Structures are given as C-alpha cells and as structure tokens.
C-alpha cells in the first residue's frame, strides 16, 4: 500500500478533528474524501501530506512511518512524493506561471525551464506561461497549480477542493487533467464537496465531525483489484452512532447533498 493510516486521531483539546481512522490507499488509486465543513477533511489531508502530525496513531507512506521523521525529513518526503493542489491556488503573486512551476523544481532538485514549459503545455497554458497570476483567470491559476504539483512527478497528488473556485468549464478541464494523471498511474486523493468531482474518483470515503461515516466505490474493477491486494474497507474505532466501525462499508447516496446535510437525507 502507498498510504496506510492506522488508528490516527487529531485532537485539539476536547475536539476530535479526526477520530481513530483506519485507511489504506494503494498506489494508483483515486480517492475522494467528502464531508461537510469542519468534518476533518483538511486536517486529514495535512496529516497525509506531512504538514501536520497525528495526536495518536500512525501514518505510513510507502512503508515509512512519518512520526519517526524530523521536520527536515518530512520536508524531503513532501517535495519528493507529494504534489499539492489547493482550492485557493496559492501561487506566488510576483512570479509568472512558469516561474511558479519552477519554484517546485527549485526546492525539489534542479530547475529546468523547458520541463516547466512542458508541464504548462500539458495543462494548456503554454501561451500564458509568462503571465503573472493576477493576469490569469481562476481556472488558469488552478491549472498552473496542477502543473506545479505534477512537475516533480509525485507518487501522490493531494488536492483540496481543486474545483471549489472554478466554473463548470474549468472544473471539467481540471477533472480531465486528474483523469490523465490517474491513467498514468498517479495516486490522487481529493477533498471535495462537489458530487461531480467525487464521482470521478474510484473510491469515496465520508467524514462527519472527524468520524468515518461511509465509504463507496465508483469503480468495481478497482475495488476488486484493491481487495485482491488485501485491501480492506476504511474503518474507525470511534464509538459514535453511524460510524463505519466494522469491515463492512456503509454506503451513501449523494456526497454533495450528504456533505451539506450531514447525511440526514
């Protein structure tokens, strides 16, 4: 498995932002994490992305326990294995599109402007490579963000609401890019409210107040392959009503609606 979460919890005082979650993600899987605001999706992403550490439990990435690594080693894991895509893009405002892509190369290894231009070409922004973020539309900025995430060929792309600030047309462009990356074998974990985005993933898990409350598969072949590898459904040790505690996945119908209503409908 590429990613293994073993009974991880993130606790702030009395608040369990993520509560006793078990989850395994094999290489090449496209996973969507859905849930309402404050359900712990981003906290979970931060822990997977080596930007936060769990209060309890263990996170393994390619078999390496992240809690054993120091800040510098975690930074190395981030730049070598993970590509980050943000809802708010977070491009450096005084750098052009191609320079923003090159920043990721700069911290990873060696800057190669040609490669950065190819990455922009891949997301359809070659002509806009020398524009500043302020001169780009939201969709274009998000595509620059994706180009930056994939420039170092990461094994795992973590995307937090990647289409949250985009119109339908740009949402489609971004999802097509994710499809291409997935077809090339990149593991993708997407946090989303959007039903369309979630439905593009092979597998969806749902959080509610930090607790796993559901899991569903959109791709049976992928499920079979996962189970053939020994993969098990996600689960939680939290003793909360509606929690997915056993080895049986609790399905849910409409992620967007469920996210907004907390699964009441």
């Amino acid at each position: 498995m590429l990613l293994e979460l073993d009974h991880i919890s993130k606790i702030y005082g009395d608040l369990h932002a993520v509560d006793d979650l078990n989850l395994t993600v094999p290489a090449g899987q496209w996973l969507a994490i859905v849930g309402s605001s404050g359900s712990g999706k981003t906290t979970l992403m931060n822990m997977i992305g080596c930007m936060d550490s769990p209060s309890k439990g263990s996170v393994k990435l390619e078999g390496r326990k992240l809690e054993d690594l120091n800040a510098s080693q975690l930074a190395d894991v981030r730049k070598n294995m993970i590509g980050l895509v943000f809802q708010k893009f977070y491009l450096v405002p005084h750098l052009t599109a191609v320079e923003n892509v090159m920043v990721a190369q700069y911290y990873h290894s060696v800057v190669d402007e040609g490669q950065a231009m190819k990455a922009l070409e891949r997301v359809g922004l070659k002509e806009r490579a020398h524009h500043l973020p302020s001169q780009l539309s939201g969709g274009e900025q998000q595509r620059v963000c994706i180009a930056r995430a994939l420039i170092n060929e990461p094994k795992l792309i973590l995307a937090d609401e990647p289409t949250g600030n985009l119109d339908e047309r740009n949402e489609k462009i971004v999802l097509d890019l994710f499809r291409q990356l997935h077809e090339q074998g990149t593991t993708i974990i997407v946090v989303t409210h959007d039903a369309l985005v979630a439905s593009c993933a092979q597998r969806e898990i749902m959080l509610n107040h930090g607790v796993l409350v559901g899991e569903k598969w959109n791709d049976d072949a992928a499920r079979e392959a996962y189970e053939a590898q020994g993969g098990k459904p996600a689960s939680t040790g939290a003793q909360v009503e509606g929690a997915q505690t056993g080895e049986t996945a609790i399905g849910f119908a409409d992620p967007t609606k469920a996210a907004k209503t907390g699964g009441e409908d």
Partner: protein
Amino acid sequence: MTNTGMFFRMLFSAVFRRRSRAVMAVIASMVGAATLFCLAMICIAVPQQMNQEMRAYGANLIVTPTGDSGSDAESDTSASGDSGSSADGSSAAKSTGIDAAMVKHTTEMVAAKGSQKHATYRYENVRVNAAPYVMAGVDAAQVRNLNHHWVVDGSWPTAGKVLVGRDVADAMGLKVGGSITIGYRASDNASGQKTSSTGSSVSSSQSAESPESDAASQSSQSSQQMRDGRVNSDIMDTTGTEFRVAGIVDTGGSEDSIIYAANADVDKLTGVKRGVDVIEYSSGASDLNALVASINDMTSMHVKAQQVTKITASDTRIITMLQTLFWIVSLVVLVLTLVGVGTTISSIVSQRRNEIGLRKALGASSAAIGVEFYVESAMYGLIGGLVGTAIGYGLASWLCVAVFERAIAFNWALGVASVALAALVAVVASIPPVHRATRIDPAIVLREE
C-alpha cells in the same frame, strides 16, 4: 537555468515586481543611509573647518630666539609659556633676532607637518611725544593673512604709513589719515633695557602682561638712564620721524597698544637691520606637540617653539564636543533606521505568510527561506543605501556650502561603508520577522476551508 539563477530570478521578482512593498523598505533604508552619511561627512568636514576657523583667530605656535647662541646668553624666561617673555632676554643673540634664513628653515619644518600660515614681528621700543611705545616691524600681508579677527579701520601699513593700535590712537587722539611722529632711541633698546613689551604683541590669546604695564615699566626704566654721571631724563624729547596713520587696529587684546609699521620703515627708523623677534605660525599639523618637540630638539637652530595653548585647547574641545554630538545623533538615527527597516520588513514578511507556508509545503527548508528573505532584505538595504548615500552626499555638500562656505569631496571609503552599513542594518532588522517566518507551519496554507 541553474538553481542559482532561479534564486536571483525569485529575488529580483520579489523586489521589482512588488514595487509598492519594496519601495517602503528601500525608503526606510534610504532615509537612514542619507542621514548617517550626511552626518558622517559633516563629522569629517567640521573638524577641518573648525581648524581653519580657529586658525583664523591667530597663531597656535610661536617661535622665538633662545638667546643661547651668544656668549652671555641669559636664561630664557619663557618657561611661563608666554612667548613674549622670551624676548626679555637681553643677550646680543636675542637682539639680532631670528635671521631670514632661519625663518625660512623653521617655516619649512612647520610646513612639512601640515598647512601653515605665518607672520614675523620685529619689536622696538619707540617714543611718541616722549612717551614710550612698542613698534612692530611686520609684513602686512603676512599679518593680515594670519589674523583674520583683527578689525582694521582704514588700511594696513605700507611705506611711510603705520597701523596703530586702538589704545594708542585713543591715548593720542589719532585718526586715520592723521600723522604721528615716532622717535627711536638706541638707549631704549639697549641691552638690559629691552622690555617684555614685545610679548604683548603676540596673539591676544596669550597670557602676556598688559601693554599698559609694560609701557609703564619701560618708561620708568628709560627715565633712569645715566649720561655723564648724571641722570639723563629725555622724557620731553619729541623728535622723530613722521608717519601717516594708515589705519587703526582693534583686536580687544594687547595688539591695541602697539604701532605696526612695514619692516623697511622700522629698519630705516632704527638704522639697524636685524632678524625678527617672534615668528607666529598657524599650523594645521595634527600633532602640534610633536612639531614643537621636533623644533626644540634642533638646538643648533637657537630657537624655541611653544604652543599657544588657549587656541589649540579651545579648538580641540569644540571639535570633540561637536563630534560627540554628531556621533550621538548618528547613533539615534541608526536605532531609528533599525526600527523603521525592521517594521517595514516585518510587515512585508507578514504579508507573505501564505507564500512562506506554500514554499515550506513545497519542501523548502527553514534555512532556505531564511536565506531568501535575508538576501532580499540586503537588496533593499543596498538599493536604499546607494540612493541614500547619494542623497546624503548632496545634503552634506549643500550644508557645507551653506554653513561653512566650502565644498567637500566625496569620501569613497565612507560611501562604501555607508552602503554596506545600510545593507547590514536591513539584514539585522529583518532577523526577528524572518526568524518568525521560518517557523510558520505549512499547514496554515491548507487550513482555510
């Protein structure tokens, strides 16, 4: 492109594409650099100017004959530090004074240690309306050049014309353009009779006895001369040579009791050509003590050099006070610059928290981020320092012209130091905010849901 190239590309983008932010930091550095450079330039210019100004108030060094060249040289009474008293010696050597060759040689020694101005004085006791006075043979141009503080009503002495002191003029009711009859008696200037009056002619800054008391003493002595076994009183003898009064000098000092005439006139009046009694120097030497010692060590010169301590001490004291004041102001400006630049950099850093978080999320180490911001701060300091130094020089030049009426040359060493200091101050001021920035948790970038 190499990673170094990318580093500078990011740096220049941060500085030049975020101009509004960068301008604030540059202005803060610029103001500091301009003020500090201006103050430093003035700190350097002021002592030079003060030296020149103080030197306009007369001599800071005097040279008199030692009198030990003669066979019966008397002890030199100048130990009191009063140059004039050196002329009390009654030896034949003293009466011949310092000859022109020795004046030239001494002047060369003084000139070797720095800029110099000098004037020579030959003193003689004369009679005006039977009353004793001191007459000084001078080169008017030299004296005028040395004593800028002398207030002369009329003109300086030329052939046949004398410059009389204010006290002399008042005592005799002399006016500019009037005439004065001056008599010379060799007996007044005979060995043992020559009084300390010459001392009073030296700069008013010295602690010479008052000319009035000199004159009284002289009068008393001259009236006691013996002729044919009887006391010969020539007190009513009013014969002499008539001179025109070219001008009246008013210094407020002992110079006001002296009659100044051209050297040639004194030679003619006395009928004797001899060397001078005093050479006054206004020396720009940095170490006057050393200069004095070097002259005094040359015993074969038969001259004695002394500092006019009042002038040199005042000069040093005022310069020290001014420099201390400037350094205190500079220190305050430096602290204010640190605060200003620090606040600006702090503001820039806090505005870029998300960017810093993003860079850390992309794998940047704290050290890498720290280096980027320190170099960026140094860049602001460098640009601000360059512009500020140029402005500071302009300001210092303007001030020196307006206040001191003199131009100052650009001091390259100070310029380089100013720019380097501006860059250093910018870096030092950015340490606290950058240190805080490097501890930013990258998770903040993703925390906004």
